[in-house]
């Protein structure tokens, strides 16, 4: 008989339990957020959560994360092909072609790209002489630019940024020359006016609205204001489950995807919204810690990449919800509705659990100086 508790102890129980906690919350909140309009949405979410649960519960013991390394380039290729396919066969929702309809399921290739980009860059870095040379830096950046451009043109700036950002930070962690790093950051700042001219109008509006939400309360800034009202009106303990007026009466847009956190804030108040913020923080820190413990470079950078994407994505989404970041369309990991994202994130957690499982099995211990000296 499969002994769950005993098995979980062999991986990392903190990462596992925090993920399960988030999965349970996702069902609870998708039910609330779709209560009025799409009443069967939570059933789909239950299906995906069950798949995700199976992935993180059983797969860590059945696979070997290093094998992902061997197929990482193919994964990269597949996601690029999917991103090209979505250009031609994509389903257009609200003016953006982001999904491929598979009949039973709408695949979101950008989510696949995020996942494969982390694996691919971790593999790339772990098989390169460190510290990273400028030539290798250009190589990996060039490779990540392809999915970025494809996603950006969907248009989906948020996912595009999330494809590149973990790669950039991983490069930074791979001891890429600090002078170049600073140079690139400065270059980015200098080039931003140029980038600005290439942004779509709605993207510009979102940034303007973020900088001054009261400028246009019924237009773009509407999202930010309504989300702030939703969260703020939750006060300490919230309005009660299914009682959120902001979300139930459609003042809050995208409440089951990008703005699910506002629904939580409204219905459960500061207590739970703070708890969930903390869960992401601890989860991210814990995965970083597992990465630090891992000697093997591919595993180490995988953990860093995964910790980064979960941490970043959660924080950017929450910042967006509380009005501290422009609305860039970044969903909340595990909690936002979306099958592809949920499966991809649980695959990432599965990899982390597998790394820790192998670490424990092979008796690797934390000696940080060995392979990578910061």
């Amino acid at each position, binding site marked *: 008989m499969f002994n769950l508790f005993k098995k979980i102890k062999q991986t990392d129980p903190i990462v596992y339990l925090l993920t399960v906690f988030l999965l349970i919350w996702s069902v609870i909140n998708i039910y609330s957020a779709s209560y009025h309009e799409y009443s069967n949405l939570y059933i789909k979410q239950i299906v995906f959560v069950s798949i995700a649960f199976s992935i993180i519960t059983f797969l860590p013991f059945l696979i070997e994360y290093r094998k992902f390394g061997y197929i990482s380039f193919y994964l990269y290729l597949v996601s690029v092909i999917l991103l090209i396919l979505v250009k031609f066969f994509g389903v257009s929702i609200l003016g953006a072609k982001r999904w491929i309809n598979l009949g039973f399921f709408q695949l979101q290739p950008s989510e696949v790209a995020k996942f494969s980009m982390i694996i691919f860059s971790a593999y790339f870095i772990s098989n390169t002489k460190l510290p990273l040379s400028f030539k290798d830096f250009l190589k990996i950046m060039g490779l990540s630019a392809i999915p970025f451009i494809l996603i950006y043109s969907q248009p989906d700036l948020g996912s595009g940024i999330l494809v590149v950002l973990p790669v950039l930070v991983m490069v930074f962690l791979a001891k890429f020359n600090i002078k170049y790093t600073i140079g690139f950051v400065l270059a980015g700042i200098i080039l931003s006016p140029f980038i600005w001219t290439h942004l779509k109008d709605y993207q510009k509006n979102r940034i303007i609205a973020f900088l001054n939400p009261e400028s246009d309360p019924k237009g773009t800034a509407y999202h930010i204001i309504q989300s702030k009202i939703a969260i703020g009106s939750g006060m300490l303990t919230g309005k009660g489950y299914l009682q959120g007026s902001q979300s139930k009466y459609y003042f809050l847009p995208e409440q089951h995807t990008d703005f699910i956190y506002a629904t939580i804030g409204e219905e459960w108040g500061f207590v739970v919204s703070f708890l969930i913020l903390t869960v992401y923080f601890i989860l991210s820190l814990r995965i970083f810690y597992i990465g630090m413990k891992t000697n093997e470079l591919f595993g180490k950078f995988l953990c860093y990449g995964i910790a980064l994407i979960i941490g970043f994505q959660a924080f950017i989404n929450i910042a967006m919800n509380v009005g501290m970041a422009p609305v860039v369309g970044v969903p909340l990991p595990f909690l936002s509705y979306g099958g592809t994202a949920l499966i991809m994130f649980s695959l990432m957690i599965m990899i982390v659990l597998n790394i820790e499982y192998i670490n424990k099995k092979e008796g690797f211990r934390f000696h940080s100086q060995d392979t990578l000296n*910061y």
Partner: protein
Amino acid sequence: MIKFNRLTFLILILTLFYFALAGRLFYLQIIKGEYYREISDKNYIKIFYSNPSRGKIYDRNGILLAYDVPTYSLIAFPYIVKKNYTMQELKENLKNYLNIELDEKTLNIIKKNLYPSVVIKKDLTQKDIENFYNYNYLFNGFYLEVVPKRVYTEEANYLAHIIGYVGYPSEKELKKNPNLSPNILVGKAGVEKIYDSLLRGESGQKAVLVDAFGRQKKVLWEKDPRKGNDIYLSIDIRIQKIAFEAFNSSKHPSGAVVLADPNTYEILALLSYPTYNLQKFYEGFSQEEWKELTENKYKPLMNKVFLGKYPPGSIYKPLVSIAALEEGAITPETRISSGSEFRIGKWVYRNWDKRGCGFINIFEALETSCDTFFYQVGLKLGVENIVKYSKLFGLGERLNPDLEVKVATIPSKEWKRKVLKQNWFHGDTVNLSIGQGYITITPFDATKIVVPIANGGYVLKPHILKAYFDNKSQRLVHINPEVIRKINIKKWNLDAVRYGMYFVVYGPSGTAKALKTVPVLNAGKTGTAQVYSYDIRKKRYHAWDFRDHAWFIDYVPYNKPKIAGVVFIEHGESGGKVAAPLMAYILKRIFKEKIIETK
């Protein structure tokens, strides 16, 4: 020991992020929580007002004068409309299906979302309403509101000035009275305004949970509208109609009639002539009609009964007589030699009748309206006493502050010093004693002279409301007569004045013989008030607005008065020849049609 390396740097940034977000959550939910909770409550609770039906207005016999009918107004919520349709679509839908041309102003309100709701069209036709429901998918964010509309009956046109009109409350009124809602009808003038609190009723309120598309989700609480109380005016519309027809058939362009019950001071008829169409006034005149009304020199829009101030002339004499008798200046037996003129130094005061009056007493003086008699009596009495009795009768005072607007100006020594910065001369007293000079009164004030004479010295509160039906207690509440004060007039003094007034009608030299034709004994007094001095008048006597004003006050029956009133004809030339026949016409018809029983 944690070493500072790139990873710890990264984790540090992440930690900073974490605290920033946690701090932000604390700020939004704990510090500003109350504020956002309030906003979110307003966000989804909308208050809909339902308008009460306004109380009906009846005359004293229950003849309907004003009532309500429901109409439908098309209201738009700009915020929702904007979300669903482009401006072009909106224009086309409204034009094609409801036949409404959207003007730029309304379009701008919708486009810029200036107000939470905006009235697109009032008073929709039945066909429009059907179309609205049939094509309701084209009108997301619109709704129909029931708006009561006032309807005035044909009879109500006879007392347009008294009924007044209704309208929507102004910003100021809304601020002042928290019970008002923007779509409730409130009285703006006349009885509609005076008794607005009785007539208005209370708005119903419905707090509804609405979503961002304006769809109603759930009724949180509901308060039904409370119907306004029906009121019964003291006006008898039959008498009012007779008064109107009297004017209409007389060819006199401008004037007023007030008839009251002297025992209660209930106003039975109150006409300001010419008048206007009440329903049209409420619904709005065309530009030409409005121009016609406002530029008409006979001032149809002005209620002359309360707003016009004219010299009273000889109708003031009964009051001066009572003062003189009571103050002992004369007795009923006192005879005074009254010639054709009276001199004070170089100033000459003429009698209206060049023949003079002879050696006469108070009865004859009233009968012939002898000016020279009253010049002498007035001087003996003194201006202070004339002012004192004027005040006792209620001249210059609002006996019913709701009803009266302007009041009489009774000149006194103080008044002249204060207003004209001049001293009082004997000539002023002489003029005042025949109701000329600085004195001006409203036609309503004229009834204040005659009512106490008719009822034996009681100064009552005049009222136009007889009763109202209280919806709360389901009872008819009568308005009781209210005595403000009693003027102590000795019976023989009062009888002397009454007798004089009787002789005005029945005496051999009476100035109002026209009243003889009234089948019931009555008493009155004519008044012909100079507007311009004799010399000026002579030059332009043909011009209407240079002519004298004609007055006639009367009470009937002589022994047990039931009606007391005044006829005033602006620039009517002669009280006896013009005003008195008009009063005679009115009274004759009242008795002929048995509106007032006499036994």
